[in-house]
């Protein structure tokens, strides 16, 4: 039998080594986005907007045009780009601190306006880059550096459900919450990311995929434990779900 390559890295990645901690799901999600860009043949016309957060240098890791926005402002920057250059494919890549705390207004209004943009929302339930503080998505009872006894609703409020909020908006063309903690889930996540890009490419509306992601370093777990914790705890608060699909097959 002839030997052939069955799986190898996508060409829309630059080849630079990721700066993420060992086992951090940011890397898996980057690879999936790059695979989708390859498969859709859009590398030459894609522009990415990186956030502030651990993925602040994400534009270095992709071999596409890109920039980085001030904290929370990725969708505002992307809106300007897309409106000036409507033939480009523009996507943002944002953590939960970026998208669901400081950038809540930008997120909600870009979705509500139905901007022809794609957003990859990496929800790891903490502020990773700054040392694991509580994020709006932190689970009740979850210990972080700013909730050392666990998040309490009386003091800290409740985990925010961005996908559920955005699912009420008519500008949204594709919206799904996924995980990347098993090989099967990784395959499904890639399909969702592809649809979220197609929502933009087919000019239907705003596309977003929320990816439940690990932060082994700040959760204080090994990468394998973190995946297990995510599947057992995060998916209870944030169930994986297809909210909106106006893209079709």
């Amino acid at each position, binding site marked *: *039998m*002839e*030997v*052939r*390559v*069955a*799986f*190898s*890295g996508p060409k829309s*990645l630059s080849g630079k*080594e*990721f700066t*993420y*901690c*060992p*086992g*951090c*799901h*940011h*890397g*898996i999600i980057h*690879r999936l986005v790059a695979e989708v860009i390859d498969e859709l043949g859009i590398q030459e016309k894609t522009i990415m907007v990186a956030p502030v957060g651990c993925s602040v240098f994400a534009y270095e890791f992709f071999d596409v045009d890109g920039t980085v926005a001030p904290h929370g402002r990725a969708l505002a920057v992307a809106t300007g780009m897309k409106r000036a250059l409507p033939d480009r494919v523009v996507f943002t890549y944002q953590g939960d601190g970026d998208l669901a705390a400081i950038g809540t207004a930008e997120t909600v209004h870009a979705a509500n306006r139905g901007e022809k943009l794609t957003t990859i929302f990496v929800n790891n339930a903490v502020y990773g880059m700054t040392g694991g503080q509580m994020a709006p998505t932190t689970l009740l009872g979850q210990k972080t550096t700013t909730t050392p006894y666990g998040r309490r609703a009386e003091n800290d409020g409740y985990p925010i459900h961005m996908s559920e909020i955005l699912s009420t908006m008519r500008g949204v063309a594709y919206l799904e919450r996924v995980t990347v903690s*098993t*090989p099967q889930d*990784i*395959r499904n996540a890639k399909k969702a990311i592809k649809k979220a890009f197609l929502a933009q490419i087919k000019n239907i509306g705003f596309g977003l995929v929320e990816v439940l992601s690990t932060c*082994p370093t700040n959760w204080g777990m*090994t*990468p*394998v434990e973190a*995946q297990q914790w995510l599947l057992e705890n995060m998916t209870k608060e944030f169930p994986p779900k297809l909210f909106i699909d106006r893209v079709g097959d």
Partner: protein
Amino acid sequence: MAKVEGYIEIDAERCKGCGLCINACPVNVIEFSEDFNSKGYHPARYKGEGCIACGFCYLSCPDVCITVFRGARKKSPVNV
């Protein structure tokens, strides 16, 4: 159906020793090396036989270190 035969190559310098590939492999043919790479991690290493080219390790690797080949590897004296 004939069993699929494959093998993998791991970029040991790129690897961060996270173990997600080892955890994902359904036939348990990846292990940690005792050696260190220049980053100071024990990189993952193919045990040398038994891979069924399922791609689970490739899918699970956050650092894009793994290439999966389908087909029998040509005999080589060193285990890479």
